């Protein structure tokens, strides 16, 4: 985003390895992530937090290299940390400090002069919806308010990229909704790149436009979330009236069909794509059976499908852990 070509990469890793004794937390991770809102998905223990720590320079890799915003995470760690923000997963706020004091302090720790730090803290706390409460002690805050303070400290120094580790942890549905809206705004309106680490698919699906899936310390998927004009995807169809004759005709034309699933209307079906002839066959089947065609669109591969396929298969085809949370 800011000051960089749109096609530049936000994160690059090559053969990244992290070992804790005999346990391999990251196993030759190769990534080339564009400058986007990136979701980092994976079951618990997949290596998400370890990857974040290495990208922030908090942890040294056992092997390989990692670059963030074009800078080496190990060699240029200090320079890099001036340009990124970090919202950790754990509770990391001093109870006996006001939100304004703490966020001001964290701005100063990033090199912002004192007077500007005070102003920035006030502005950012306003942006995250804590304008009125900023002079209250943090220990009196709800979980949602504490999460907002953590988010405020992560962006108070105006970073180019912010790492958010499980930002909706412990939030009730309303709080989670508000937090996701805030994160979307940070990326879309404030122009700050976001790396959102989560095990909640909906969070990533709502905020991100690129996803990296880790499983067992390996990258099992790294791709854009929404692929426009996918001409290889299966097709969703819906016809008015009894779909029986229409589906039978499609079967006769050699196309397999199945119900679209519980998240779609009961009269919606998926037609397996069979090259270019699929669209013609659907048109012909509808015309021959006199079934009014009400819907015809490429079936989107949902993030859940991507996740289950990727994590289930694992990078080496090993059975994966399916600790997936779909809220």
């Amino acid at each position, binding site marked *: 985003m*800011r000051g960089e070509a749109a096609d530049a990469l936000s994160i690059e890793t090559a053969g990244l390895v992290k070992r*804790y004794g005999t346990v391999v937390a990251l196993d030759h991770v190769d990534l080339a992530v564009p400058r986007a809102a990136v979701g980092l998905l994976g079951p618990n223990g997949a290596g998400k937090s*370890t990857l974040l*720590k290495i990208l*922030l*320079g*908090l*942890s*040294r890799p056992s092997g390989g290299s990692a670059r963030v915003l074009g800078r080496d995470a190990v060699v240029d*760690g*200090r*320079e890099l*940390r*001036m340009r*990124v*923000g*970090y919202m*950790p997963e*754990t*509770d*990391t*706020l*001093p*109870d*006996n*400090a*006001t939100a304004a*004091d703490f966020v001001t*302090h*964290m701005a*100063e*720790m*990033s*090199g*912002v*002069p*004192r007077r*500007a730090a005070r102003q*920035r803290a006030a*502005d*950012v706390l*306003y*942006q995250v919806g804590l304008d009125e409460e900023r002079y209250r*002690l943090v220990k009196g805050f709800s979980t949602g308010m504490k999460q907002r303070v953590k988010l405020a*400290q992560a962006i108070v*120094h*105006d970073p180019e990229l912010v790492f958010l580790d499980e930002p909706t942890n412990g939030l009730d549905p309303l709080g989670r909704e508000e937090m996701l809206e805030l994160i979307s705004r940070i990326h879309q*309106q*404030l*122009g700050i790149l976001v790396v959102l680490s989560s095990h909640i698919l909906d969070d990533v699906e709502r905020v991100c436009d690129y996803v990296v899936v880790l499983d067992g310390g390996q990258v099992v998927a790294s791709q854009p979330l929404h692929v426009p004009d996918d001409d290889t995807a299966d097709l969703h169809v819906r016809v008015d009236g009894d779909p029986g004759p229409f589906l039978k005709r499609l079967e006769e034309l050699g196309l397999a069909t199945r119900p679209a699933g519980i998240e779609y209307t009961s009269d919606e079906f998926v037609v397996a794509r069979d090259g270019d002839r699929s669209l013609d066959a659907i048109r012909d089947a509808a015309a021959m059976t006199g079934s009014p065609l009400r819907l015809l669109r490429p079936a989107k591969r949902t993030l859940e499908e991507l996740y289950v396929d990727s994590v289930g298969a694992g990078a080496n085809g090993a059975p994966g852990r399916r600790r997936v949370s779909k809220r």
Partner: protein
Amino acid sequence: MSAAPGQYGEIFDRGYRHYDGPRLGQAQAIWALARYSVARALGMRRPWTAKIIPMLLYAAVSIPVLIAIGIRAFFPAFEFLSYPEFFGAIFLLVGIFVALIAPEMMSSDRHDGLLPLYFSRPIGRSPYVLAKLLATGLLTLSMSLLPAVVLWLGNGLLAPEPLPAMRAGLDDLGRIVVAGTMIAFYLGAIGLLISSFTGRKSVAVGVIILGFVLSESLSVAILQAFRDRPDLARWSMVVSPSRTIATLVGQLFGEPDLGADVPLNAVLGVMAAVIAICCAVMFAWYQRRD
């Protein structure tokens, strides 16, 4: 009908603004962390309960000095509080003060989980420890050095001829600065080292106080064990902060009855070595990464 501009005040756009001002270097970050740590240790911008003990300790150190100056003003011939007496009297208070502030410096950050936040900032690990040393040193100096300097100023200004008296007392001022500074960093480094290993303030406070008490007992035990070898027994002061400080004050101010019979340079070397070891261990400890 629209109101005239400015009649009801102005509407400010509070949209997010990018920051394009200066970004200061590591020295600024170290100073910012030291300042913040000092403020928190003294209970500033915190509930009044957090301010009570530091204020009581400051009062306990200051009141004898003020009384001494007052007596000096009205009874010039009567010396109420000599410098060795002052340092002997405040050792315990400075020890308690360190036991109070050092855990606030180190243990609180661990307890509150602030270390990942700090280390994700440009400051880094060694400068973090440096900032905490600076904060602890400054605070402890305010207990060990500042009142002694005030006492020296009072003695000088209340003398019949202030300027010659102060000029004559410059040696004393030098001794005060050496004693105050060494005591501050010596006790501060020990307190910080102990506190850096735990996230629980109460544990750190307990271990620091217990450590001071036990070290005294250990020193006495060594002294007894080597009573037939006074040349060795005198070095038992090395394990006792109170005897080390007493020895420093005695040697500095020419009162060999205080502490052990150890040369000034040796006791300064012992204190400097303890400070260096504590710092080295802390720096190494905070360099640990996952």
